[in-house]
């Protein structure tokens, strides 16, 4: 239990009559990179939002960082970092100003501000651009900044919602290398994506379609279970197979 960073049981979210998330259960170990895969509209964003305390689940149970998602959602927020699809940064402010803002919002002790600011600028390699307006930065840099802002309060768990959309392959590679390195410090990373090939980077994945989990486990084992005879199969093939199977 204590080694689980995230655990949910029978989580349900209904919007009116539409069931976005239908009785899903899974757990994430500390320090692992966990992938939440599925097509658009499958319920990935809804799930991540429930875990982050943005929306309240309709029913079920769960805990994040040892805290109950129904009753302790406020405390959870202190322990997590979140990066959304849109890298929600303040475009009309500089990286420096954005960092400072989030430092304050996360109640990072003032004595640590200088050090944390330096850390973020280092890690994002934005030291020379720290006084340029965010909207003038290329998307890759903005992604790094959003990531930095999600980490500056040293959270235990990092939630990333479609983090590599619209980003070039080189930046993507750097991104995953950074994530991997992050987990060695004990941070758990929870990623949603619809890029199946990126899911190779995850330790374990869960595939979700129409609100339900269709398969879970380490990526390589999933591929092998589905296509024991093929050596060139990958998660993309698994995905297509599962989705078409569902349809029929």
């Amino acid at each position: 239990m204590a080694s689980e960073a995230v655990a949910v049981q029978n989580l349900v979210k209904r919007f009116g009559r539409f069931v976005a998330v239908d009785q899903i259960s899974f757990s994430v170990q500390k320090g692992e990179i966990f992938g939440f895969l599925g097509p658009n509209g499958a319920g990935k964003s809804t799930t991540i939002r429930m875990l982050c305390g943005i929306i309240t689940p309709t029913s079920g149970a769960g805990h994040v960082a040892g805290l109950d998602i129904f009753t302790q959602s406020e405390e959870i927020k202190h322990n997590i970092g979140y990066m959304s699809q849109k890298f929600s940064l303040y475009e009309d402010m500089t990286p420096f100003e954005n960092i400072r803002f989030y430092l304050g919002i996360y109640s990072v002790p003032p004595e640590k501000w200088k050090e944390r600011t330096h850390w973020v600028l280092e890690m994002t390699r934005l030291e020379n651009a720290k006084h340029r307006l965010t909207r003038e930065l290329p998307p890759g840099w903005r992604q790094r900044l959003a990531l930095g802002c999600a980490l500056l309060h040293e959270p235990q768990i990092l939630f990333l919602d479609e983090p590599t959309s619209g980003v070039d392959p080189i930046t993507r590679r750097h991104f995953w290398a950074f994530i991997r390195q992050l987990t060695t410090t004990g941070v758990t990373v929870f990623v949603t994506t619809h890029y199946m090939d990126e899911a190779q980077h995850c330790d374990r994945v869960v595939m979700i379609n129409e609100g339900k989990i269709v398969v879970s486990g380490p990526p390589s084992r999933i591929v092998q279970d589905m296509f024991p005879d093929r050596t060139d199969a990958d998660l993309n093939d698994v995905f297509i197979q599962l989705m078409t199977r569902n349809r029929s």
Partner: protein
Amino acid sequence: MNWIRVRELVRKEFIQLFRDKKNRPLLIVAPLVQLILFGYVVTTDVRDITVGLLDLSRTPESRMLIDAIGGNKTFRITEVTERPVDMDQLLLMRKVNLGVKIPPDFSVKIRKGQTAEVQILADGSMSNMAAVRISYMFTVLEQFNNQVIRELHPVKMSYGKADDRIRTWYNPNLDSRNFYVPGIVAFLIMLLVMLLTSMAIIREKESGTMEQLMVTPLKPLELILGKTIPFILIAQAQMIIVTIFAVFWFDIPLVGSISLLLVATCLFLLSTLGIGLFISTISTTQQQAMMTTFFFILPFFMLSGFVFPVANMPKIVQWLTYLNPLKYFLIIIRGVFLKGTGLGSLWPQFAGLLILGLIVFWGSVNLFRKRLD
């Protein structure tokens, strides 16, 4: 309640507000421009009434009347016509405010001791102005009458005359500027605060950063404070600038207590911010926020006694004005500026502002919190 979080929000808000170069001058220039406009434009004083003359009599008596009119400082004879049709044209083209038609039998009738009729033609387009101009003309006619009677009957004039001493309280010179300019301060604050507050929150929603904020430990109350405090500060600053300008440029008297004014501004801001918050909660786009702000501002402005007197309104509407924070604020402002009244007389208005402000603000905060979920 973490004040550092609030502080950072406030700082962010200021950065964003002042970063857009076009916004900066607007915050200072806009209020001042409006102050000047209202200060010089909004006046319903009647001076310089233009008169067109048609003298069909051309006798010493008619000239006496013309001199009486022309000699009066309020009137200015700008046109003299020979024919009735020319007079009609003058009025039709709005070249004069009043037309005076002296009939051919004018002096004959007067000398016979009968009553001569003088036609006064008034441009009724602006009826309130017309009413006053007509009144003034009547006054001149009556004065003329007295003069003629005195000349015709030079008797020792001591008769039971009612000597009227008309005194005007509070605004002895009836300087309408004194009346309107302090009100501008109130109106400007209301407009800008409502607009900026609602737009600030909506922009957060539109750009997606609102979602980011919701993931942080930021509490709804802290968010609200962070979003409203900048505008409270800006509003107070604008009020001070505008007041200084009003007092030194327009010579508006400021008789009462300035601290009372600042307290009243804070109370007034409770309602204004509350409404701005409400607008941001029910709107999803900036366009909606702007239109909705306008929709609220208009009746608040019109039904506050700023330009149109509350006493003139139908009874039901008068009751409605009790819900208008601007009304109370205006009374306080005018009281402090012009009459120097203190809390003793003004406490009902302060109470009104406080009650309204608390209800509106508390209601809006609750609605905002609920919507956040």
